[in-house]
């Protein structure tokens, strides 16, 4: 706890220092960098020290920090339990990586904006997110949550000279505010039931089942908006591309995960929910997972694609949570433990590999000055570091063996299979359907990242013709690898991806620690062994295969060394006017699979394919329309707008009218008091 307080105070002092020195770019950036490293180091230390405790001490009284009687109902009461510690771990890792990257990214920034203020806000965001994660008082939690929303709004709208960025920022602000309304009601009900706004008392309170269901619905909407469940996800694909890269990474890796943290915290407090809550969560998770990856397939913009993948991965996490809740409702603790552990571990893994993917996508955008994948291509040779790191991120997100995504998806699968074995008919049906959904998500994600990696890094550069005449390619001087400040954080994250995939025991153990904090029960040692051992042996065999594969690759490289290499152009059946644009694009690669699912999503191809022998000028454009945005929210917003326009006369803009309102209000209050 002391370590965390040190880290927080470092952040507070340094953010003030940054604001003080924000006139000088160099000093503020330097203060930012070193304070970030120090604070994240202390934070990680404190999180790890809690997670590494051998036995679980249920009420962690020794490590709380409390300031009494600060605001009515609320007090400054923070403490780290294993669940908080697990999220703190992923949060500090990612904020360290994203922060250093942001330092490198904004160093060359020559625009109008003051980067010092941006850095100070970044520190403030770290402070409030830490507070959200360690708050043990509902009022403190809500206050920190609100400040977090505002701070991240300012961080997202860094490039606020563009209209679309401002709009995305507003959308984010409004959607999350709707969520906060639900959370406020939820915590008030909880507090009224428990007689205190502290989480400890709430945990000790028994909630009736009907009330628990109501609380669940409120939490589901409130936290679901933050987490980006379909259909509440509409802010997500707009905010991610709008934000600067390191903020997108933090947004997708941590801010979205806070929705998951909130749900887990509510589960830890309320504990017993009716069965249908778990089923609802499972269904929504499957929809989010499949929907997220299908929408991702239809995207041309790299950051938007990654944003939709966040929705997909939230779906996978929630599948684990849902099966955990179902298992809990059936009193099958094995299912619950593995489900929760899978959800937690995937939360961590997703934060790491999605952070890696966003940062490497940011490097690509930094070099090519466009986010449109159809203008990229052939970057693997020009950006070997970024290419390989993006590849590692892609392999992890697809859940392929030897990378960390595999481990957590294995756990979720395992929980669902346990569900098939231990539950009754109803449970079996839902678990097996969830397995099908998870398998579909995995396959489509692999397809989607084949597309993303192939279109961005392989082939030859598609934009070269448009920019620099017929023969000109993007010159090597134009595109060059970023320096260590950009590369270092990505290498760190990639190393964690590999470490989590090759040596999974530690992270699975940490996830089990977090699970104990959610359920409040001790996990039997036998169960831990039963889950970890098969994982370890599978990893061992797979890494042996990986070693053989790499040896074969090296042997091949060695043998080829003696032969001369001849470079010729791509075989085009003798076609003379071969151009760089005659390649697979993001749209054409995804088209066959999107056609299969066209009834499920609004997939559109504009323009027509010419069937003549000598086709004249033609253009094709494919797009995927977000169903919940265009069919649900847009009409809803339209109705609201129309309705509120009718009330506009109240707000006339004349000062006299407003004084009249105040006068009338006072009169009403007086009359009220008299009666």
């Amino acid at each position, binding site marked *: 706890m002391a370590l965390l307080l040190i880290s927080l105070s470092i952040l507070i002092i340094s953010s003030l220092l940054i604001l003080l020195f924000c006139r000088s770019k160099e000093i503020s950036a330097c203060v930012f960098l070193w304070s970030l490293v120090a604070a994240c180091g202390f934070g990680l230390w404190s999180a790890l020290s809690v997670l590494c405790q051998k036995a679980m001490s249920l009420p962690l009284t020794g490590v709380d920090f409390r300031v009494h009687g600060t605001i009515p109902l609320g007090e400054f009461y923070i403490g780290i339990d294993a669940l908080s510690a697990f999220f703190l771990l992923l949060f500090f890792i990612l904020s360290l990586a994203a922060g250093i990257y942001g330092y490198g990214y904004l160093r060359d920034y020559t625009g109008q904006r003051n980067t010092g203020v941006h850095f100070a806000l970044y520190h403030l965001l770290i402070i409030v997110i830490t507070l959200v994660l360690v708050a043990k008082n509902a009022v403190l939690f809500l206050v920190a949550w609100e400040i977090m929303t505002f701070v991240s709004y300012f961080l997202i709208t860094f490039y606020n000279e563009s209209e679309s960025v401002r709009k995305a920022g507003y959308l984010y602000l409004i959607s999350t505010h709707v969520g906060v309304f639900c959370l406020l009601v939820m915590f008030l009900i909880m507090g009224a039931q428990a007689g205190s706004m502290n989480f400890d008392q709430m945990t000790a309170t028994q909630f009736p089942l009907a009330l628990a269901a109501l609380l669940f619905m409120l939490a589901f909407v409130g936290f679901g908006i933050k987490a980006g469940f379909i259909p509440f996800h509409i802010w997500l694909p707009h905010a991610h591309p709008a934000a600067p890269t390191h903020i997108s990474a933090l947004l997708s890796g941590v801010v979205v995960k806070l929705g998951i943290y909130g749900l887990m915290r509510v589960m830890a407090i309320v504990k017993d929910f009716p069965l249908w809550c778990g089923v609802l969560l499972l269904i929504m998770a499957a929809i989010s997972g499949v929907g997220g990856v299908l929408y991702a397939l239809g995207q041309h913009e790299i950051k938007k694609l990654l944003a939709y993948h966040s929705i997909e991965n939230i779906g996978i996490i929630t599948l684990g949570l849902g099966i955990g809740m179902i298992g809990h409702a059936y009193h099958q603790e094995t299912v619950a433990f593995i489900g929760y552990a899978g959800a937690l571990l995937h939360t961590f893994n997703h934060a790491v590999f999605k952070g890696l993917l966003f940062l490497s996508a940011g490097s690509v955008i930094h070099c090519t000055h466009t986010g449109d994948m159809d203008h990229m291509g052939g970057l693997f040779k020009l950006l070997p570091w970024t290419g390989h790191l993006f590849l590692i991120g892609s392999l992890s997100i697809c859940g392929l063996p030897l990378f960390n995504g595999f481990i957590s998806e294995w756990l979720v699968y395992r929980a669902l299979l346990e569900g098939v074995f231990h539950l009754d008919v109803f449970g079996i049906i839902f678990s097996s359907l969830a397995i099908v959904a998870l398998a579909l998500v995995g396959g489509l994600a692999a397809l989607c990242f084949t597309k993303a990696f192939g279109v961005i890094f392989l082939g030859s550069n598609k934009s070269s013709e448009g920019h620099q005449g017929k023969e000109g390619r993007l010159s090597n001087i134009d595109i060059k690898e970023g320096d260590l400040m950009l590369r270092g954080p990505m290498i760190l994250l990639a190393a964690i991806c590999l470490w989590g995939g090759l040596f999974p025991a530690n992270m699975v153990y940490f996830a089990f620690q977090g699970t104990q904090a959610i359920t409040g029960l001790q996990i039997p040692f036998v169960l831990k062994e039963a889950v970890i051992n098969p994982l370890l042996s599978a990893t061992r065999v797979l890494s042996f295969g990986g070693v053989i594969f790499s040896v074969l690759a090296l042997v091949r490289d060695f043998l080829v060394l003696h032969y001369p290499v*001849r470079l*010729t*152009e791509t*075989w085009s059946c*003798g*076609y*003379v006017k071969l151009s760089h644009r005659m390649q697979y694009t993001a749209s054409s690669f995804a088209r066959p699979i999107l056609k299969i699912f066209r009834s499920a999503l609004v997939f559109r191809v504009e323009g027509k394919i010419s069937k003549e022998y000598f086709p004249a000028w033609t253009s094709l454009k494919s797009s995927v329309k977000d169903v919940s945005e265009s069919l649900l929210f847009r009409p809803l917003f339209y109705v609201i707008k129309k309705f509120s326009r009718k009330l506009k006369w109240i707000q006339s803009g004349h000062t006299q009218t407003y004084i009249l309102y105040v006068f009338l209000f006072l009169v009403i209050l007086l009359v009220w008091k008299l009666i």
Partner: protein
Amino acid sequence: MLKILKTRFKQGCRTILFPKAKAPDLPQRYRGRPIIAGQNGSIDLGKIFFNPDSDIVYSNDYSMATSKREDLVLSQEREMALARALNERMLKIFGRSLKLRQVSAGGCNACELDLNVLNTPVFDLSRFGIQFVASPRHADGIVVTGPVSRNMREALLKTYEAIPEPKLVIALGGCAISGGIFSDSPQASHGLDTIIPVDLFIPGCPPHPLTTLDGLLRLLGRISS
């Protein structure tokens, strides 16, 4: 399918025994290698069209393919030098498996048609390990037919470029060898060997399948004179 199998069974093996045995006798009408004796001057096999109206007297001999362009010119002074086998290294690579890509560079389809005959059961080209493939990326060499018109020139060069090293080039028919009846036209080139190095010249208009097969087998060292 059963019907086909039945017919095949009924017809038996139709493949000729060439080169192990002598090739079947060709009909009297067949115009093979010209008889140079008793004629004045020389005859360029790459330029004549083997038409019956000319003064040239033709024999029944089908072996005419050569390794060099100048060997196609028959004269009274010397014996005709037929195609020689490839060197040892090339034979090691191509001797038992040769994949070819056909490029019709402005051809009239006569050569292509008679090249196709080699794939029929009678000649059964694939028993020698020689096959035609769809892409130059899979090929060891190209068979060029036609006078290489200006429009096909670049496509031909691209195909040649696309074949992995080492590669063979075979010029099939009078048009490919010398431009043939188009040799006066500015739209055609005057011989494939002026564009890319050629390893085998097979004259004829079009060459008889036996001529082509004989040339290919000589190139691969299966027939020695």
